[in-house]
C-alpha cells in the first residue's frame, strides 16, 4: 500500500471516526433517565473517540470531530444542545490534548478521563448559565455533575485504554 499521506486517506479516516462518534452519542441519547443520576448526565462514550484522536492522531482531527459532534447535536436536538456540546467538547478535547501530549505528568487514562469529564461538564454548565442567565446553576448543579464526572471518567478512561491498540491499527492503515 502507498505509505504517502494522501488527502483521500485522511478524509476516509475522519469519516470512520466521525461516524463512530455520532453513533455513540446517538446511542447514549437512548439511555432513559435513571433515578439518582442527574438529568442529562451521560457516560460520555463519544468523547472516547475525540480523546483517542487527541492521543493518537492530532489536534486538527480531534477538533474536527468535536465540532462535527456539536453540529450533529444541533441538527438533531437544537441550538441549545449544539452550544452545550460544542463548549463542553472543545474544553474537554483541549484538556485531553494537553494531558495526553505531556510527558512529564504521570496521569493514568482514568485520571485523564476524569479531568476531561469535569471539563466537559464545566463547559456545558457555563453555557447553561449564560443561556439561562442564572449563575446559581453552578452551585446547584456543579457539585453533583463533578461527582458524577468521577464515575464517567472511570468509564471513558478505561474504554480509551482498551480501544487505543485496535484503533491505532486503523490509523496505520490510513496513514
Amino acid at each position, binding site marked *: 500500500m502507498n505509505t504517502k499521506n494522501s488527502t483521500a486517506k485522511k478524509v476516509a479516516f475522519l469519516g470512520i471516526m466521525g461516524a463512530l462518534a455520532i453513533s455513540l452519542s446517538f446511542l447514549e441519547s437512548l439511555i432513559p433517565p435513571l433515578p439518582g443520576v442527574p438529568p442529562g448526565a451521560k457516560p460520555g462514550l463519544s468523547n472516547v473517540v475525540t480523546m483517542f484522536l487527541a492521543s493518537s492522531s492530532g489536534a486538527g482531527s480531534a477538533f474536527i470531530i468535536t465540532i462535527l459532534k456539536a453540529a450533529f447535536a444541533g441538527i438533531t436536538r437544537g441550538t441549545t444542545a449544539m452550544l452545550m456540546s460544542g463548549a463542553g467538547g472543545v474544553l474537554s478535547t483541549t484538556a485531553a490534548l494537553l494531558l495526553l501530549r505531556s510527558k512529564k505528568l504521570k496521569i493514568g487514562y482514568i485520571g485523564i478521563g476524569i479531568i476531561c469529564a469535569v471539563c466537559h461538564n464545566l463547559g456545558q454548565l457555563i453555557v447553561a448559565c449564560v443561556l439561562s442567565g442564572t449563575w446559581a*446553576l*453552578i452551585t446547584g448543579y456543579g457539585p453533583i455533575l463533578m461527582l458524577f464526572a468521577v464515575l464517567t471518567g472511570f468509564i471513558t478512561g478505561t474504554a480509551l485504554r482498551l480501544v487505543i491498540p485496535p484503533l491505532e491499527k486503523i490509523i496505520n492503515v490510513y496513514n
Partner: protein
Amino acid sequence: MRKLFSRTDIFIIIGVIVLSFIFLIPNVFKNDELIAQVYADGEIVKEFNLSEIDEETVFCPNENIVISVRNGAIRFSSSSCKDELCVNSGWLTAKGQTAACLPQKVVITIKGAGKTDMITY
C-alpha cells in the same frame, strides 16, 4: 504505553470530590426556611416560601411550562419541550437544588431564606 491508573489519579479523584464538597458548603450553611425562586430569562419572576405553603398549587411563568408547588417542595410538572429534562428532575426539596428548562430559559432553585448567597451573586 501510559498506565490505566496511576498514583496521580488518586489525587485527581480526591481533588475533584473535595472541590465539589467546597461548592456544596454555601448551600448547606443556611437557615431552615426553604425559599424557591423561579427565574425566567435570568430574572426572578416569582418566589415561594415553601415552608408556608399548605395546598399544592401551580404557577405558569409562560404558556409552555407548569410549575407545581407544595409544602417543602417545588417541581416542573410539565413542559412543551420534547426531552423534558426539567420534568425528570422531579421534586426539589433541599437547599441548593436546581432544575432548569433551557429551551424555555426557566430555572427553579431553592435557596435559604434571608441571607444572600455570597458565592453566586
